C-alpha cells in the first residue's frame, strides 16, 4: 500500500541511508506540527481559552481527550494552539541567526586579515554568554515577551552558524572555481551569494535545523520562568508555568501534555538536522 503512494524520488530520499525510516517519521511529526499551527482553529476540538471550572484537572477521556488544566481549559486544544508560538519563535531565531551568521561568516572568510580577526573575536565573546542567560538579561531590560528573547537568542546563536560558515567558506574558497570567477572579474558579493553560498547551503541548513530544537527549548524555558510568552496565551512553556501549581496535588497532565509536545518537536528537528548533516558529510 505504502509502496504505491511513495513516488520514486521520495523513496530514494528516505531509503538511501540508515535511519531513513526515523527521518521520515521526524518529517511527519514536523509536518503535523506545522499543520497544527496553521490550522489550529480547525483542528482544535474546543476553544483553547474557554474556562470550565467543573472540568478542572479532568483526566484524559470524555469531553477532554487529553484532559483539562486547573481552569478546566482543554489541554489538547491548548497544545494545538501552542504550536503557533512554539514554532514561530524558534523560526524567528533560526532565520535571523542564519542570515546574521552567513553574513558574518562569509565576510570573515572573504576579507580575512583584520576583518576576520575582529569578527572571530566578537563571535568568541558571544560564545561566553549562554543564550538563555543573554535572553534573561534582555528581559530584565525590556520586560517579558517573545520578541526580545527571539532577537537575543538569534544573536547568541549567530556564532554557531558564523563559525561553521567561515570554516566551510574558507575551505571552499581554496577551490579553483572561485579563483576562476575572480579572474573573470566577478565582484566579491556576487561570487559569495551566487556561487559560494549555494555550495555551502546544505551544511548551514543542517546546523540551523539543529539550532531550531535548541531555540525551542530555550524559549520554552523562558516562558516557564514567566519571562517569555505570557499566560494565559496557549504556549507550551507558559502552559507548564501555569500547570506547576497543580503538581503537588499529583496532577501531572497540564505539564506532561505540553512537555511531551516540546520533547517530540525537539527530537524531530534534531533527527532531521542530524540526518542532513550526515548526508552532507557523506558527499
Amino acid at each position: 500500500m505504502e509502496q504505491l503512494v511513495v513516488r520514486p524520488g521520495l523513496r530514494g530520499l528516505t531509503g538511501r541511508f540508515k535511519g531513513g525510516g526515523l527521518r521520515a517519521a521526524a518529517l511527519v511529526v514536523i509536518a503535523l506540527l506545522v499543520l497544527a499551527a496553521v490550522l489550529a482553529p480547525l483542528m482544535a476540538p474546543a476553544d483553547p481559552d474557554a474556562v470550565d471550572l467543573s472540568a478542572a484537572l479532568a483526566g484524559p477521556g470524555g469531553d477532554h481527550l487529553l484532559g483539562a488544566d486547573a481552569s478546566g481549559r482543554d489541554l489538547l486544544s491548548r497544545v494545538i494552539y501552542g504550536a503557533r508560538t512554539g514554532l514561530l519563535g524558534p523560526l524567528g531565531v533560526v532565520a535571523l541567526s542564519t542570515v546574521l551568521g552567513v553574513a558574518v561568516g562569509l565576510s570573515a572568510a572573504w576579507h580575512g586579515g583584520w576583518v576576520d580577526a575582529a569578527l572571530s573575536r566578537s563571535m568568541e565573546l558571544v560564545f561566553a554568554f549562554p543564550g538563555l542567560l543573554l535572553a534573561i538579561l534582555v528581559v530584565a531590560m525590556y520586560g517579558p515577551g517573545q520578541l526580545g528573547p527571539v532577537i537575543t537568542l538569534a544573536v547568541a546563536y549567530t556564532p554557531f552558524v558564523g563559525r561553521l560558515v567561515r570554516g566551510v567558506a574558507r575551505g571552499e574558497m581554496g577551490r579553483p572555481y572561485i579563483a576562476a570567477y575572480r579572474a573573470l572579474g566577478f565582484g566579491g558579493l556576487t561570487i559569495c551569494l551566487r556561487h559560494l553560498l549555494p555550495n555551502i547551503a546544505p551544511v548551514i541548513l543542517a546546523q540551523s535545523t539543529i539550532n531550531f530544537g535548541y531555540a525551542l527549548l530555550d524559549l520554552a524555558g523562558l516562558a516557564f520562568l514567566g519571562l517569555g510568552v505570557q499566560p494565559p496565551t496557549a504556549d507550551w512553556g507558559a502552559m507548564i508555568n501555569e500547570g506547576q501549581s497543580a503538581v503537588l496535588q499529583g496532577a501531572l497532565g497540564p505539564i506532561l501534555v505540553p512537555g511531551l509536545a516540546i520533547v517530540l518537536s525537539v527530537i524531530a528537528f534534531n533527527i532531521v538536522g542530524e540526518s542532513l548533516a550526515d548526508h552532507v558529510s557523506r558527499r
Partner: protein
Amino acid sequence: MARFLLRRLAGMAAILGAASFLVFGALQLAPGDPATFLLSGRSATPEALAAIRAQYRLDDPVPVQYLHWIGGVITGDFGRSVQFRTDVGGLIAARVPVTLTLIGMAFVLTMVLGLAFGVWSATRPGVVDKAVLVGSSVAVATPSFVLGFVLIVVFSVNLGWFPSIGAGDGLADRLHHLTLPAVALALTFAGVLARVSRTAMIEQLGQEYVVVARGRGVPEPTIVRRHVLRGAMTVTLTYGGLLVPGLLVSTVLVETTFGVNGLGQLLQYSVTVKDFPVVQALTLLTVAVFVLANLVVDLLAPLADARVRLGART
C-alpha cells in the same frame, strides 16, 4: 608554560572586560532614564532617585560611571540590591553553597552517566547501541523543568522518597533535598556527553593500535579499559568541563522548579521584580565561570593525554 599562562590570562581578561562593558552598557541601553529604570516599579520619590544617582554616580560622564562600577566589581562590590536593600555580593555569597552543591552533584552524575552509556553503546553495537542513541536523543530533548515535575510527582508526591521543595539544612539533608534537582539538571547534559564519548570511543576502537593489541593476545576488556577508554576519556573530560557553564545557567530552570533558594532562583526572582544590579552581577559571574572552565580544561588536558602540550588546543 609561563608564556602560555600569560597568554591565556590575557585572553580571559579580554573576554571578561568586554563582557563587563556589555553588562554595564545594558543599564544605559535599557529604556528610560537609568535612575528611573533602576527604581522601576518602586516609589520613585525624589530622595530615592537622588540616592540611586549618587550610588551609581549617574550624574558623572558614562566612562567615569563605568570605572566606578568596574572598580567596585573587582573588589567584590556589586552594588546594592534595589529589592532586598542589601549588598548584592552578600545575596550571592549566601546562595553559592547551595548552587555549588547542586552543580557538583549534577556534574558527577553527568560524567558518570555520560561516560558509562557512551562506553556501553560503543562496545555493544546493535540493540544496546540503538537503545542508548534513542535514549540520549530523548534526554537531550527533554527540558529539565518538565523532567523535574515528573520526578516530583513520582518520587515526592507518590512515593514520598524525596522532598519536593527547598534545599535542606546540614550535609545529609541537603544532599537528600538536591538529589531530584541534580537528576533533572544532569539528564540533558548526560545525553550530550553519552553521544560525545560514544563517538570518541568508536574513533579509538578503529585505531591501528587496537588491532595490534588484539594481535598480541591482550584480552578485549583490557584493551577497552586500558587504552580505548583512556583515549576517549580525554575528549569526554574536555567536553564535560565545558558543560559546567551550561549547568550553571540551567540552575535557573531547575531551582525554580524545585523551589531551591540558590543563584538560579535569585536570577529568576530578580528579573521578575526588576532588580537590575543583581541580574548584572549574576550575568558577569556566569561569564567568569565560562572563562574559568575553559582555562581549567586547557590546564588539565596535558594530564589526561601526555601528547597534548599546553596551549595546543585551539
